[in-house]
């Protein structure tokens, strides 16, 4: 292996080389590498370009805080945009490339934007592209500037096609859930297991150990090196049958009910995974701490790395990230770093002391030298006394901040701790959730272990440490003093978004003093890295620019997910056919075999019409309508909502629910009814059948069944708990076939020869139990077509057999479209066609359904409100186009002129419109202002620019006397 790999050491398997490509270049790493460490080992220093200024950027970190190394992975449907190189385990054949930089990340033409960045300072786009004043271009923003900006912006390329991977959702309930398998998390999990608890432990890395993975300077734990102890503890936990322990698994959200949302990725593959919904009595957030880079001029040059990343490169990955290093820390915890640099034979050419600072860096695409200057009495660097040292590595640390994201997104608070030099948790959040270890500002190994183990745990003592224990001490704000405004434009706070100290200063000058305003104005912290390395520096810079304390400024809010999660993973198995499961009737296969074209009604698939081979919709529907008007048709009505209503007060209950009387309904009879909401508007309709003195069978619309039942239960339980009545959904207990037409009785007689079908024995609007086609059936004599009709109901599982028998008896199948034609010819309404939540029964001409003789019913009082009785309400009418061949568009608006001039007053709209083969013309139902007084009037139906003259008329077009019910 060439490049920077050390001859030995690290947690990589040098016997397993892995080939991958970066921007088309073939490279090799080892098992155990991340893409980031493999790039570093191959001396790839530029891993991408920044968002705004297209500056070359290298790896700042080797962990989840990485702002720069954001890659496109794979191509086509397998593409995954914007993946962090530091979080991707290296895999054979992986093809990655930077998300920005054209033609390449090394030579990016966009780099010209960095030649004079001053005009592109924070918020510049708010101040220009304003007026439509560009010569020759109307609306320059929409036509020119925005398309240009949109083309320049963006990061990764979206995949193409359907995701080949599948994602799972799983649920787990435990006593204790622990986030993070660093020292504190491991101690917490072991302590909980020691108490007999069921435990879940989640670690986002592919190995346990947390910070112990990347350093060597900490004390021995229970007489083992920290990493050895961590691996031992992990093994003990993973072996415990009461524990679930998962690697490469990230807790990304914490929600009400102590529900932890966790995303598990396979340890050996980059993509698809599983979301765990974890419910726990106790949650321990041991997510560690995040190192902050120092902010100084030139701090974004490739070769400037977090001290912890330098240590991890050497210790964990066996990579030598440079030859000559400058060390720039703002705290006292440098021993581990120095040991690591020495071990990798990296010369420390300079350490920036407490009275010095870095004032600049040099080198194209990689660090070549560093300027260091002493601080003057004013606290600013003395530029005249600066010295330049050659270096290709700058290890920087501005201290550590506890990883509070999970705590904060569940409503927890944070506060500045002067003693700790960081924001720490300050209460809030849910009961039963605690922070531990570095996340709780316990930075030393001993303190983290003790905190994780928990002082009140009782039982076994926690892990014992011996030997020196390093922790950052005296860490200050990660903001170097900068002498000149010009240099502030080179001191980066948010690497991903190119936000500099100068930008924060500008925001402050322009009055964006609230941290949330400064964040939004400059976009600091709004990148895919969630501003992990930017948040504190933003607040620090704003504090400096406005002369306030950082504790008074605070940090901007954090929002879930803690790290990005794929759409597909959140959607889980709900894709394709499982996205919204289809409801089918028991006759569904028969409909398919008959060539049915289906329509969606709620979750149901209903046959809209049955097309013979080569038959178009219009002739098919006309054929089906003729069958019903002249012979007999069969319609699958199994989707109708059905509710069983029972109890001594069932009749009283229904009397209050429907506008008409139901208590007078005789046993054996049925009655049509409409339900109103208590605002007086029509809500649903259907048929009520009285099965016995205390038992009713109620039908609802297909789409409204669940809502009606819930609503009836509301009235029954909350308003009228004194009524002795019970409700049950029986929608999927009864399959039904409507048999309609002049030959309906003959067809039914063939199926149920023992049933007397005479008008006297089985009159319209009654029901009978009978045996039909050998099946126990309940038969309702009702009609939605105007023809003699029966709805035969049988147990759900026999639906197909009933359908087969009805068709064998000669009935022609018809679908919902023919059903609509037939019912509209009769002027029958359909909820959702002729109603939209603003229509009363009076509007529909159903005043005869409103009983004046009974007491209160739902909606009665509201019907008397002034706006519901005022003139000008839209009323149901029929429309006949003057040109009989015209079928109006449903949704056409009714106006008084053929040549509208907007705003043209609208009188109503077409609710239902069809071709009627019985009438041999187009016809429609409409809601028209004062429509009942307009019968005979000539109006216009206007749709998509075409006006058709129409004649207003009564909505009943066919057989107004109802003679055919008895044909």
């Amino acid at each position: 292996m060439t490049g920077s790999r050390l001859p030995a050491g690290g947690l990589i398997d040098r016997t397993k080389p892995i080939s991958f490509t970066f921007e088309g270049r073939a490279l090799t790493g080892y098992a155990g590498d991340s893409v980031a460490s493999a790039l570093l080992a191959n001396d790839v220093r530029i891993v991408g370009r920044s968002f705004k200024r297209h500056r070359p950027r290298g790896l700042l970190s080797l962990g989840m805080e990485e702002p720069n190394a954001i890659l496109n992975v794979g191509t086509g449907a397998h593409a995954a945009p914007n993946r962090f190189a530091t979080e991707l385990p290296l895999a054979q054949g992986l093809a990655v490339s930077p998300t920005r930089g054209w033609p390449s990340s090394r030579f990016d033409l966009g780099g010209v934007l960095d030649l004079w960045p001053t005009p592109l300072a924070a918020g510049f786009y708010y101040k220009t592209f304003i007026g439509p004043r560009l010569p020759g271009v109307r609306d320059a923003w929409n036509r020119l500037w925005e398309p240009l900006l949109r083309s320049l912006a963006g990061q990764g390329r979206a995949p193409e096609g359907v995701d080949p991977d599948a994602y799972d959702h799983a649920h787990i309930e435990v006593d204790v859930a622990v986030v993070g398998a660093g020292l504190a998390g491991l101690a917490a999990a072991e302590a909980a297991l020691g108490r007999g608890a069921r435990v879940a432990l989640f670690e986002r890395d592919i190995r346990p150990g947390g910070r112990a993975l990347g350093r060597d300077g900490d004390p021995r734990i229970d007489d083992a090196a920290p990493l050895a102890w961590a691996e031992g503890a992990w093994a003990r936990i993973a072996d415990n049958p009461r524990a679930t322990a998962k690697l490469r698994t990230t807790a990304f959200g914490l929600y009400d009910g102590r529900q932890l949302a966790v995303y598990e990725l396979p340890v050996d593959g980059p993509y698809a995974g599983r979301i765990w919904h974890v419910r726990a009595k106790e949650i321990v957030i041991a997510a560690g701490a995040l190192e902050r880079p120092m902010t100084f001029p030139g701090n974004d040059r490739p070769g400037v790395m977090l001290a912890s990343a330098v240590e991890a490169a050497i210790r964990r990955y066996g990579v030598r990230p440079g030859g000559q290093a400058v060390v720039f820390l703002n705290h006292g915890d440098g021993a581990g770093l120095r040991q690591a640099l020495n071990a990798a034979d990296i010369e420390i050419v300079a350490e920036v002391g407490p009275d010095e600072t870095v004032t600049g860096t040099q080198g194209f695409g990689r660090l070549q030298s560093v300027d260091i200057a002493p601080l003057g009495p004013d606290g600013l660097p003395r530029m005249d006394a600066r010295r330049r040292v050659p270096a290709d590595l700058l290890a920087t640390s501005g201290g550590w901040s506890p990883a509070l994201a999970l705590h904060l997104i569940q409503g927890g608070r944070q506060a500045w701790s002067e003693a700790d030099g960081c924001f720490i948790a300050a209460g809030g959040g849910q009961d039963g959730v605690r922070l531990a270890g570095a996340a709780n500002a316990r930075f030393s190994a001993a303190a983290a272990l003790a905190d994780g183990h928990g002082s009140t745990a009782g039982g076994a003592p926690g892990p014992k440490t011996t030997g020196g224990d390093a922790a950052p001490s005296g860490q200050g704000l990660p903001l170097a003093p900068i002498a000149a405004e010009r240099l502030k434009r080179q001191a980066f706070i948010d690497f991903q978004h190119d936000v500099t100290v100068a930008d924060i200063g500008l925001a402050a000058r322009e009055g964006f003093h609230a941290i949330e305003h400064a964040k939004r104005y400059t976009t600091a912290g709004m990148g895919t890295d969630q501003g992990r390395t930017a948040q504190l520096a933003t607040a620090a810079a704003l504090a400096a620019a406005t002369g306030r304390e950082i504790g008074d400024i605070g940090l901007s809010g954090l929002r879930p997910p803690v790290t990005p999660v794929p759409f597909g993973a959140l959607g889980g198995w709900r894709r394709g056919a499982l996205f919204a499961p289809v409801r089918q009737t028991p006759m569904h296969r028969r409909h398919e075999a008959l060539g049915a074209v289906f329509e969606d009604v709620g979750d149901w698939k209903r046959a809209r019409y049955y097309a013979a081979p080569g038959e178009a919709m219009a002739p098919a529907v006309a054929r089906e309508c003729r069958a019903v008007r002249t012979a007999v048709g069969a319609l699958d009505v199994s989707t109708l909502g059905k509710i069983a209503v029972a109890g001594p007060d069932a009749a009283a209950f229904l009397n209050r629910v429907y506008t008409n009387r139901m208590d007078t309904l005789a046993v054996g009879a049925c009655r049509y009814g409409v339900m109103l909401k208590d605002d007086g508007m029509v809500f649903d309709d259907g048929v009520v059948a009285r099965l016995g003195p205390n038992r009713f069978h109620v039908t609802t619309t297909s789409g409204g069944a669940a809502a009606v039942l819930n609503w009836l239960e509301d009235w029954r339980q909350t308003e009228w708990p004194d009524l002795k009545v019970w409700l049950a959904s029986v929608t999927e207990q009864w399959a039904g076939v409507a048999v309609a037409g002049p030959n309906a009785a003959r067809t039914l007689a063939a199926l149920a020869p023992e049933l007397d079908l005479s008008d006297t024995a089985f009159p319209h609007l009654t029901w009978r139990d009978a045996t039909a086609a050998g099946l126990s059936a309940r038969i309702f004599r009702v009609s939605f077509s105007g023809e003699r009709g029966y709805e035969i109901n049988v147990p759900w599982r026999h639906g197909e057999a009933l359908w087969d028998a009805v068709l064998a008896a000669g009935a022609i199948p018809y679908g919902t479209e023919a059903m609509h034609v037939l019912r509209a010819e009769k002027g029958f309404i359909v909820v959702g066609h002729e109603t939209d939540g603003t229509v009363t029964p009076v509007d529909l001409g159903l005043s005869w359904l409103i009983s004046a003789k009974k007491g209160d019913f739902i909606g009665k009082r509201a019907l008397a409100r002034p706006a519901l009785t005022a003139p000008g309400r839209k009323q149901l009418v029929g429309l006949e186009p003057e040109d009989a061949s015209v079928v109006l568009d449903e949704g056409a608006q009714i106006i008084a002129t053929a040549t509208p001039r907007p705003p043209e007053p609208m009188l109503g709209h077409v609710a239902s419109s069809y071709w009627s083969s019985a009438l041999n013309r187009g016809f429609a139902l409409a809601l028209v202002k004062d429509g009942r007084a307009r019968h005979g009037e000539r109006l216009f139906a206007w749709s998509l620019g075409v006006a058709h003259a129409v004649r207003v008329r009564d909505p009943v077009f066919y057989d107004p006397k109802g003679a055919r019910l008895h044909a």
Partner: protein
Amino acid sequence: MQDRFSAGRILREALGGNAGWRPWRRNPEPKPRYDVIIVGGGGHGLATAYYLAKLHGIANVAVIEKGWIGGGNAGRNTTIVRSNYLWDESAAIYEHGLKLWEGLSADLNINVMFSQRGVLNLAHTLHDVREGMRRVNANQLNGVDAEWLDAPGVKAFCPLIDISADARWPVLGATLQRRGGTARHDAVVWGYARAADRLGVDIIENAEVTAILRDGQGRFDGVETTRGTIKARTGALVAAGHSSILAAMAGFRLPIESHPLQALVSEPLKRLLDCVVMSNQVHVYVSQSDKGELVMGAGIDAYTSYTQRGALHVIEDQMAAACALFPMFSRVRVMRTWAGIVDVCPDASPIIGATPVPGLYINCGWGTGGFKATPSSGWTLAHTIATGAPHPLNAPFALKRFETGALIDEHGAAAVAH
């Protein structure tokens, strides 16, 4: 207006190292008395103050904000702007707003990035088609631009959409409003604030109203705040999700429930979606920001809440829906989710006008769709405050309509959130 923004100014200031930029607005101490107090420093409140000062010459106005301006729903929405509402009353007020949007950058001298990229409302069922046609026709007759696209037309306008007939909810067509689009929400808030401030309006942040004062006759007389007592004879409550709380302080009740409404953005992607796509049936509302993020509205959480936090299952539902309509989004990642507190009215229409308290006005009930109305909401409320009577545009949206039953029910047909 001094201190104007322009490309030339940017270059001049850059030559001076950007040292010459001035604060966008003052940070005034509250005065003891104003002519008008507006409670709520969101887009609607700031727009009200701006139009009061600009159009009605009432500049002795305080906007009282409990936190930082734009920190509520103004900063938490999906920035969709359109005017294709069904009913005449709604179309009129939203169309008035759309016309204001079209001149807003020039009026406020800030680029609010109003991007007229077109808004598609997809139809997936025959019911959707019927209602979509009804709305397009109503829009056209009201002078609001609207088109009906069939499924191939949808594909031609937005090639990303899966229109295959075997989709769970196949795309049968769509309404299109080409003048609709998105705008940059922060710019709108800051722009109104800057412009109002220049006209003399005091914007007072970090002042939470703790009581509403009434005089002996019961008339509005000012507010107690965490920054002291501020008096005025006229006030307006423009507090979205917190309207019920303020109304209770003033002694009346509202037909409002406050619910969390979640939204999210993806990681930034290269430009791929150049219009706004909305689907009620599949429940997707998506656009791509200029930065490249997919901006999506999720469902409303079922329960009332003041937490600005929603539940995960709502986001999961939303992501399943997004992948159903745009299968290629599956491997794109969610970067941030958040929630606003929306004030939901029974008829999905706002309340703009008088309250039972003389001298006190209210503007609330915008539910899931208030952002688009920011200019016209402020414009009509300013008119109402200045003249003491509603403008014809907002007269139908009186609180009184709930007594008479003259609701403007946008649920039934045009029930499109956001």
